[in-house]
């Protein structure tokens, strides 16, 4: 549906994107993650035909963004980071203008009613955009991106400025839309990507540094996994039982457990699965399990590791 091949974009002498290639299949939700100035918005501007790549190619739905921009624009609904609104217009006037500009004609009324409902704009339809709250401005802009029922949605920071309830509402809307749409969304709120996106693209300093599912990314940055377990047992027996398990690299005791309970973090290589052997050890030693959990890196931690390691590579290169 969307394909970028070796895309580079320079603003003057400053490179914004360097040799970025990826493709997005129909129906996928892709999260674009990266620090400020990483090149996320530039990539989105190229896909939406607002800006041209310095080199490389970008096709959307089979159309080249440079050769056939009007066909590309017809397929895309775009929410830019700047939230482009005409402050002198009423909300319904703005949506009517977008409907006309998107050539909706006979279909307009039906789409207008749907988008007003979906974006929760009914209470403010007759208000001037300049007096709307930030949340309503964001929703009005999201409505303009959805009004023509596009196949592809490009959302640059879609939940920026929204309160937690509104964020949940927008997340649900994106999830509902994902049934028949291809969506690329960028955000700084990292948990949002993990809850909505099927796939995450991490961009840093204009380079695509990671591409995969949430679990893939975590595996990419963690050399070893860990589990936490606490049981009712003697410390010595526990240590002996755990050390017997094949693949265990390290046992780090938890000193905060209550008397009679022993616990610790068990580290093992990311490609090894020790859980069956650990289960076996629990049964064999007749341990009463108090707490057991698989420990995972948060998205923030993996994001920091990914961007930091790519920056260091860039710095040493």
């Amino acid at each position, binding site marked *: 549906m969307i394909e970028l091949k070796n895309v580079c974009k320079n603003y003057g002498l400053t490179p914004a994107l360097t040799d970025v290639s990826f493709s997005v299949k129909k129906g996928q939700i892709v999260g674009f993650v990266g620090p400020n100035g990483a090149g996320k918005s530039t990539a989105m*501007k190229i896909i*939406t*035909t*607002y*800006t*041209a790549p*310095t080199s490389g190619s970008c096709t959307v739905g089979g159309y080249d963004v440079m050769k056939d921009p*009007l066909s590309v*624009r*017809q397929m*895309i609904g*775009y929410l*830019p980071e*700047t*939230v*482009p*609104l*005409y*402050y*002198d*217009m009423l909300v319904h*006037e703005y949506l009517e*203008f*977008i409907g*006309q*500009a*998107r*050539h909706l004609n006979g279909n307009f009324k039906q789409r207008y009613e749907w988008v007003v409902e979906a974006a929760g704009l009914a209470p403010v339809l007759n208000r001037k955009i300049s007096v709307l709250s930030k949340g309503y401005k964001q929703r009005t802009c999201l409505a*303009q991106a959805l009004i023509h029922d596009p196949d592809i949605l490009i959302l640059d920071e879609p939940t920026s400025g929204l309160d937690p309830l509104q964020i949940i509402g927008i997340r649900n809307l994106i999830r509902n839309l994902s049934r028949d749409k291809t969506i690329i969304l960028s955000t700084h709120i990292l948990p949002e990507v993990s809850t909505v996106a099927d796939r995450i693209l991490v961009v840093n300093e204009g380079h695509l540094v990671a591409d995969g599912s949430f679990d893939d990314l975590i595996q990419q940055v963690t050399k070893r996994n860990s589990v936490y377990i606490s049981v009712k047992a003697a410390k010595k027996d526990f240590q002996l039982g755990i050390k017997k398990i094949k693949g265990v690299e390290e046992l780090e005791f938890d000193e905060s457990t209550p008397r009679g309970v022993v616990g610790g973090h068990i580290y093992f290589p990311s490609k090894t699965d020790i859980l069956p052997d650990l289960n076996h050890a629990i049964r064999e030693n007749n341990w009463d399990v108090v707490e057991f959990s698989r420990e995972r890196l948060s998205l923030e931690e993996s994001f920091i590791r990914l961007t930091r390691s790519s920056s260091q590579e860039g710095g040493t290169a």
Partner: protein
Amino acid sequence: MNDVAIILKRELKQYFYSPIAYVFCIIFIVLNASIYMFHFFFFGNADMRAFFSTLPLILGLIFIPAISMRLWSEDYKLGTVELLLTLPIRTEAIVLGKYLAGLIFYLVGLAGTLTIPILLVFLGKPDIGPIFGGYFGAIMLGAFFLAVGIFISGFFSDQIVSLIITSMACGFLVLVGWQYVPMVIDGWIPGLGSFLYKYVGVTRHFNDIERGVIDFKSIIYFLSFTALFIYLNAKALERRKY
């Protein structure tokens, strides 16, 4: 609805919603009328020569830059340029829609000065030919200056900068059309002043039309330069992508 008409309608609404636009319109009418009335009562001539002789400067330095300054600069400031240029509408149609909205607003302002010829008809027996010629020339002149203004507005996100640069550009076009300014330029660089006077200066062409001499060369001059700047505006916007 036609793409040009969609943009035109939106832009026109924005003009008429804006109090600043009304202020400039009123200033234009009052300024023109007062300069003219002074001349009318002082010399007692029932013609509009004085009105049309000051019109190029008033249009070029104040009124047209005030109309054109927001055409693109405001979109850059609000970020709506990103919205407009990702709509399934050709850039040329967007430029034309914006340009025509500015032109219509200018024509409304110009129509406000029609009180002067109406007054003349009641008070005396003016020669209608030069008045028609003058208004025709004013339309041509305004259309040309507006094309220059929209082109310049396409480069700046600050409306005031856009206004000042347009004033300077239109002022230059007026000045090099006066006979003695090219003579001074010729003194510095021989031939340049005459070239500018003959091919670039706007005043000579406007004066021809205003006198009632409908010279096709002058009409072609206005139409071709107007079309050129509208075209250049669309090309410059496309070029911004790179």
